[in-house]
């Protein structure tokens, strides 16, 4: 089994229950998890800390996930290129296309199982090495 104990994942979602669910899935595999409630708090976090992966929801107050991704990718920071996994309840083509245009690495449709989330986190953290 791989050890992800040094890999840092930022979970951005406005639903407390979702963040808790993801956190327990990721921590069980040794990831270190930070949380943010929306895109703006996510930007504050990436300005202060390093991450190997961000998991970002689309609908959130003040700043949605797509705008977060646009802003992150347009900054000239070492962290601007980290892999970003977008999650959303909408399987609509519009959101998926917007996420891809904004620079998402992958798109998962909610509800997401813990094993699936952990699997993708492992893939993207591995690829970032």
């Amino acid at each position, binding site marked *: 089994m791989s050890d992800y104990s040094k890999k840092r994942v930022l979970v951005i979602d406005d*639903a407390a229950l*979702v963040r808790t*669910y993801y956190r327990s899935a990721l921590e069980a595999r040794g990831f270190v998890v930070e949380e943010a409630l929306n895109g703006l708090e996510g930007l504050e976090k990436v300005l202060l800390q390093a991450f190997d992966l961000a998991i970002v929801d689309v*609908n959130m107050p003040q700043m949605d996930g797509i705008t977060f991704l646009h802003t992150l990718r347009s900054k000239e920071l070492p962290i601007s290129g980290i892999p970003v996994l977008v999650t959303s309840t909408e399987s*609509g083509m519009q959101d998926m296309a*917007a996420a891809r245009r904004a620079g998402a690495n992958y798109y998962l449709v909610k*509800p997401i*199982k813990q094993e699936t989330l952990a699997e993708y986190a492992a893939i993207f953290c591995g690829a970032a090495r």
Partner: protein
Amino acid sequence: MPLIRKPASPPETPAPDDRNIAEMLIEGSDDERWTAARRTTLLPEALPLLTTALSKERIARVREAIFTALAKMGSSESAAVIIPYLRSDDAAQRTAALDALRAMPGAAAVHLPGLLKDADADVRLLACEIARVLPADDASRLLEELIERELNPNVCAAAIEVLAETGTAASLKVLGQCATRFPEEPFLAFAIKTARDRIGSR
């Protein structure tokens, strides 16, 4: 020691002429449209003006100001102008509309029962977050009713998320029934268990 000068009188930002607000709101520069939107509520015909302006506006900051003006009006009619934007394909517009509705709880509440029955699951899902700003009893009752009839697991999850905050012992039964309806969804099982623990039985 007096390195810091005695302040001069501050340079005021020029205030626009009230007669021009309507014109500026539609045809002005970005700054003029922003300023006009912030002052429109002073005008008697504010609602149709803001409705038109919102439909044309592309700059996020000006849209915010228009939404704030509508929230300040706080009427069922001004909420009705915002609601269509919950259906936007653009996530930023949905977010802005939902935030505005949350800033006008009384007016948004009037539309909430309808939104929670909307044919579009994405609209029902966003509407759950509006319930969060209502008095806990109203919110819980509406969300419990929604959960009883809802077939979309993500909409249920959104309602459970809010119920975990607003719910009472009376919500526990509906939550329990919901769990049996989605045996294939581990996230729902987790959300329901957590919400029930949070609400407790005391």
